[in-house]
């Protein structure tokens, strides 16, 4: 029997704590892959920069430092800023938006991206929607990655910003319906904060990957979107809570996207919700929070247990980093792959009823077919199949490579 991965949180997430520290440096990756498009630095070496000033820009987004500092020469696809010893707080002037046509540019200038992990620039997303605006806005507060509680924390404690962003989106795009998608177990305490708002509630399962956009739109429409269909094609705009909070903060306080709300999870301690300045290293975050990493027995994971990856202490917090987790090493993670026993666990685990091991075998043999393309395009790399594989086949890594292989050969 397949047992789905549960994402029920046992405790209510606390208020997000602002991480106050002065790091040695802030690092911003400038590669096109991270930003889903080329970005060019506009900082000269030695130039003095203010917090929130544009340091790099591209067609669809911009980057801003969270602290005052001095720019250094951009090197190896990354920009480095040395923060000054004296910091001046950013001015909190509202920057309201009333013109729909200005929306993509507004989002580009504030550097808003999908903060659920995809990091897709909102400016690019919204520019496509201006001609045919969606009718439904979905606030995706379904945190299905086990252990993460930051979205729920923002919904409870930063409601002001989220609500402002929701109202602005619905007003400018003329949306008819706002839906709040939540985990079944989280609905109770979110209702205390959001019960009075004119929104529809969409209860998703407490199992992973209940918060996937495809599953939300499937539950909303009653039909699974066909491969290649975007949610926006169905008239649905699904937005992450952290992105809405960043947008709301820009509207109410004029602050660009310069911090990242994230969950810090450590063994034998409750999860902490943090507001971390962008560009700061994971080592600095751990040090400030009094966490030590035993590299022999523990591993640092960014962006969740299921879809995340193991990182070094030098890893810099980016706009898609929704969690930092210090996990005790398990021997199973390092076990070598064994031949498939065709147990069918991956078939049971796949939330989209795909054929994971069939896809993996065909990708490895480079046997391209219509069925493989359809399934690979549908797969969103949730990793549920890898998690249940009794012989440790790295299915999700194979699919990632398969997607690249398909793209290269298309």
């Amino acid at each position, binding site marked *: 029997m397949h047992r789905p991965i549960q994402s029920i949180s046992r405790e209510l997430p606390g208020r997000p704590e602002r991480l106050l520290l002065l790091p040695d440096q802030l690092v911003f990756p400038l590669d096109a892959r991270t930003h889903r498009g080329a970005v060019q630095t506009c900082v000269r070496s030695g130039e003095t920069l203010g917090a929130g000033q544009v340091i790099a820009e591209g067609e669809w987004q911009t980057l801003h430092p969270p602290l005052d500092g001095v720019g250094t020469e951009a090197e190896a696809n990354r920009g480095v800023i040395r923060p000054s010893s004296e910091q001046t707080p950013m001015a909190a002037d509202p920057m309201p938006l009333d013109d729909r046509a200005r929306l993509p540019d507004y989002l580009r200038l504030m550097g808003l991206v999908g903060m659920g992990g995809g990091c897709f620039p909102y400016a690019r997303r919204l520019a496509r929607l201006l001609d045919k605006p969606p009718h439904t806005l979905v606030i995706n507060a379904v945190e299905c990655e086990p252990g993460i509680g930051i979205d729920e924390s923002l919904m409870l404690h930063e409601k002001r910003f989220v609500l402002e962003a929701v109202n602005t989106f619905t007003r400018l795009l003329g949306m008819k319906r706002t839906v709040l998608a939540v985990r079944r177990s989280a609905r109770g305490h979110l209702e205390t904060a959001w019960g009075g708002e004119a929104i529809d509630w969409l209860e998703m399962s407490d199992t992973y990957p209940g918060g996937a956009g495809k599953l939300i739109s499937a539950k909303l429409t009653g039909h699974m979107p066909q491969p290649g269909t975007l949610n926006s094609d169905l008239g649905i705009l699904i937005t992450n809570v952290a992105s809405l909070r960043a947008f709301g903060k820009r509207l109410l306080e004029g602050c660009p996207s310069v911090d990242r709300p994230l969950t810090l999870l450590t063994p034998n301690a409750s999860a902490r919700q943090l507001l971390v300045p962008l560009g700061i290293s994971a080592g600095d975050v751990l040090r400030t929070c009094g966490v030590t990493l035993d590299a022999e027995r523990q*591993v640092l994971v960014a962006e969740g247990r299921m879809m995340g990856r193991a990182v070094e202490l030098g890893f810099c917090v980016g706009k898609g980093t929704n969690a930092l987790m210090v996990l005790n090493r398990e021997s199973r993670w390092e076990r070598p792959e064994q031949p498939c026993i065709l147990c069918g666990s991956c078939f049971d685990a796949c939330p989209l009823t795909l054929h994971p091991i069939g896809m993996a075998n065909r990708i490895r043999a480079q046997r391209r077919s219509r069925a493989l393309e359809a399934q690979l395009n549908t797969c969103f790399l949730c990793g549920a199949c890898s998690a249940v594989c009794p012989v440790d086949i790295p299915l999700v890594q194979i699919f990632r490579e398969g997607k690249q292989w398909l793209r290269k050969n298309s």
Partner: protein
Amino acid sequence: MAQKEQLKGPFLRSGMDVRGMMWAMMSCLILTAAHFSLRYDGAYFPRFLLVVFLGWAMEWLYGLLCDGRSVWPRVSTGVTGALLALSVPAHMPLLPLLCGLLVAVWFGKCIVDRSALRVNPMILGRLFLMLVFAAPIQEWLAPGREISAITSATPLGLYKAEGITYGLGKLITGSIQGDWEGVYEMLPGAPGEVMPLLALFFGVILYWMGVLDWRPGVAFMGSFAIACAFLKMPILFHAAAGSVIFTSVYVITDPRSTPGSKAGRWMAGAVAGAITAAVRWHGYYPEGVVFGVLAANLLAPTLDRLAFALRGIFPIIGKKFRPFSNRWKLLS
């Protein structure tokens, strides 16, 4: 640092590993053998263990002879040996049984298992015995045992010879004894099949532990029942007699030899069930599971390919999509 780079997500694993799955199955088979030994024949259990250990020894020997190295035998080979020992007569002479075991382990586990062909090793061994040692595999009587009847028969043999159905209650609880009209002394069949309730109970346990998939077993039973009804055979008697339930729990659910896809498993189970019923209806042997399972095994790669290709034509099967079934709701 190099070690850290090898770490691959996801960093949360659920379910059993393959060794655990095999040991769980092995434990159920050992308990089944112990049950037979306690109820019918005290000498059976040591014999059962001997077959299992000889199966492991054969795999070790194969590794030594063919690969030139001593390889620790797999738990799954023990499962193959246990299944074979439980599906042939309890008093079958040891020499033919070991020949069947040799075929099951060397050909089924060591050669076929490494190829693209998917055949259950136990079925291969049993098929060999049916073809080469046709008499000992149907000899249900213990050598030297005194009987007061003319001959002996299992419930299925009695049905085949006389068209008589044995009592359902006795079949389910494994209380097979006495004689029929002084002509046939009634004997329990193979040790694995004498108590269907026990097999069913272990099936539920193994399913709950995540070892078995329910689909091929249910498809097997379902199609067997439908075929029995179509051929005007007593459904409940046929389901309880012989190794239908034993097969639906332990054999047709073997992951290595059945299709991996859900649709493929349904189809494989259905094929095996229908052929089993057809062989019982009009075949030479009273039992037909070997032929049914063999046909399903040989079809497995085709069924998997078919199921995969259908996803290209119908990317999402089913108009109404329900991502979370009721079972998931209950669990959460």
